[in-house]
């Protein structure tokens, strides 16, 4: 029986052939995106460009619109107006599967792991390898062990139930799932919000290593110090709008905080999209 073809893409993204596009070129863009929920305007002409090969942070207070913008990128929400672009071409995501088909994967804040299932079942959930009606359990477990072994020294075994894993291990499993399926962009929503100091450090090291291997990451975080440690660029949102974009090499924590709180006013940098539009 033939193996399903939909699952042939599960591997470390960095093991895959180099894409045609070069690092630094826009990978995914939101251009003047608005989104309303009833009377609430969650996004107001929000524009954001994530460049290939960078770790780009998205910060802002609660209710600033970060999650809504991310959900537009992942196909959960459709913008009311504005445009999403992928590799320079306009795209419309009708469902999360549309975003996934472009290699966009998400590490959700709640991790989206099923505790009573084993690690391999979580990694392949919704995209299982199968021959005819039956799962190829051995093949999936083997690939899970390979992937986790490549990411961690003390990787949990593929047959371990998620319920028995530590917070850091769970985070790593969620990251491994996103990295394993992603061919272009991994979105991480507050990846260390629920972790202790040691586990936070381990996850940051993992992301740094994956970035070093060419992975593009969009990081949502409340932790300004973490953003400065991990990201090359940071976009700040406030009240549904993008109010600034900074290079972390030249910016300090106080600059970011000033934009988050509104103390810096509206001195936002023009985005690539705006530059391109003139």
């Amino acid at each position, binding site marked *: 029986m033939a193996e399903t073809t939909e699952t042939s893409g599960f591997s470390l993204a960095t093991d895959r052939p180099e894409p045609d596009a070069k690092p630094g070129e826009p990978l995914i863009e939101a251009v003047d995106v608005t989104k309303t929920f009833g009377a609430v305007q969650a996004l107001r002409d929000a524009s954001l460009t994530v460049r290939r090969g960078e770790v780009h942070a998205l910060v802002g207070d609660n209710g600033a619109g970060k999650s809504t913008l991310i959900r537009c990128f992942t196909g959960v929400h459709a913008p009311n107006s504005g445009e999403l672009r992928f590799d320079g071409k306009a795209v419309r995501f009708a469902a*999360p*599967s549309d975003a*996934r088909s472009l290699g966009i994967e*998400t590490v*959700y804040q*709640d*991790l*989206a*792991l*099923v*505790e*009573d*299932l084993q690690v391999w*079942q979580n990694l392949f*959930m*919704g*995209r*299982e390898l*199968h021959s005819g*009606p*039956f*799962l190829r*359990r051995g093949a999936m477990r083997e690939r899970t062990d390979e992937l986790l072994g490549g990411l*961690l*020294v*003390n990787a*949990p*075994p593929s*047959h*371990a*139930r998620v*319920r*028995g*894993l*530590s*917070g*850091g*291990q769970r*985070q*790593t499993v969620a990251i491994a799932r996103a990295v394993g399926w992603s061919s272009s962009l991994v979105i991480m929503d507050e990846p260390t919000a629920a972790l202790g100091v*040691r*586990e936070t450090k*381990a*996850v940051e*090291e*993992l992301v740094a*290593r994956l970035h070093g291997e060419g992975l593009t990451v969009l990081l949502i975080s409340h932790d300004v110090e973490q953003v400065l440690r991990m990201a090359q660029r940071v976009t700040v949102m406030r009240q549904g709008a993008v109010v600034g974009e900074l290079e972390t090499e030249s910016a300090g924590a106080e600059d970011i905080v000033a934009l988050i709180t509104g103390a810096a006013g509206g001195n936002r940098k023009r985005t690539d999209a705006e530059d391109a539009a003139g």
Partner: protein
Amino acid sequence: MSTATATPAQSRQGGSALDRAKTLEFWSEQAAVVGLLIAVVVFSILTSTFLTTGNISDLLVSAAILVLLAIGQQFVVAAAGIDLSIGATLPLGAALIGVTVARHGWSLGTGIALALLACTFVGLVNGTIIAKLGVSDFIVTLGTFGVINGLALILVKGDTVAVNSTTLQNLALNSFLGIRWFVLIGLVVAAAAHLTIFHTRFGVHLLAIGGDRDAARSMGVRVARGRIAAYAVSGVLAGLAAVLQVSRTGSADPSLQTNLLLSSIAAVVLGGSSLFGGKASIVGTVAGALLLTTLINGFTLLSVSDYYQPIAVGLVVIGAAVLSRFQGRTA
């Protein structure tokens, strides 16, 4: 780099059988198997007729209907649902066989096919209302329980219909390769259910839906479709159970089967599954159904009054439910 070392729970996953046996979780998961072994040993000591070929054969045959219902219930429970309607779906299936075959002279095959289709339809309706309209499974299946019971009574005008069929008599009394047909049907359904839950995408998706519906949805699992399918499986197995019941009694009785309904849920709980979903064990559920049937069989052989039997069965179920509270914890 490395992250944290193994947690106690993780060590437990890879620990020895002895370590596992020290946890209450282990005992809650194995309650049915352990309880069944104890019941067999105790009844074998207390009565010489228990462990005879004839009695064991009769016990297994009488357990077959409950095994089918409990397996159907297991599919629904795995997806964090519950199906109260099977206590009325079974009599509906029986009534359809009775009306079509005995009163209208249709062929047995047509009558059975119609009964299976109708019972599956009941499951589909339950699942659709629950999954698509977001109504509580308890309320929906309790509602269909009443509606279907009324339909069954209308179909047979409140009477039990005699169904004279040589084929059904053979099914109830005869064997194939030395195994009674009822037992064989139970074994085949159990094996198919085990393969479906643990070795197919549908099964793993059901466990994911039951374990964490939002996570499953986030990962692209079609949650509504999976839940509807679980109720459909429960419905079709209730239909198959109706065929066995008509076969066994030689008649189509439209009476509600509340005992079988409650026992099907009890068998699933005894088998180590969580009523909160996400866990399943076909071996455990079958063992649970066998344990409940064994208790009734053993008490009958010991001439224990019918009044005491439900008390004993109820206490066993409560014990299993208490143990299930410890799932995921160490002793």
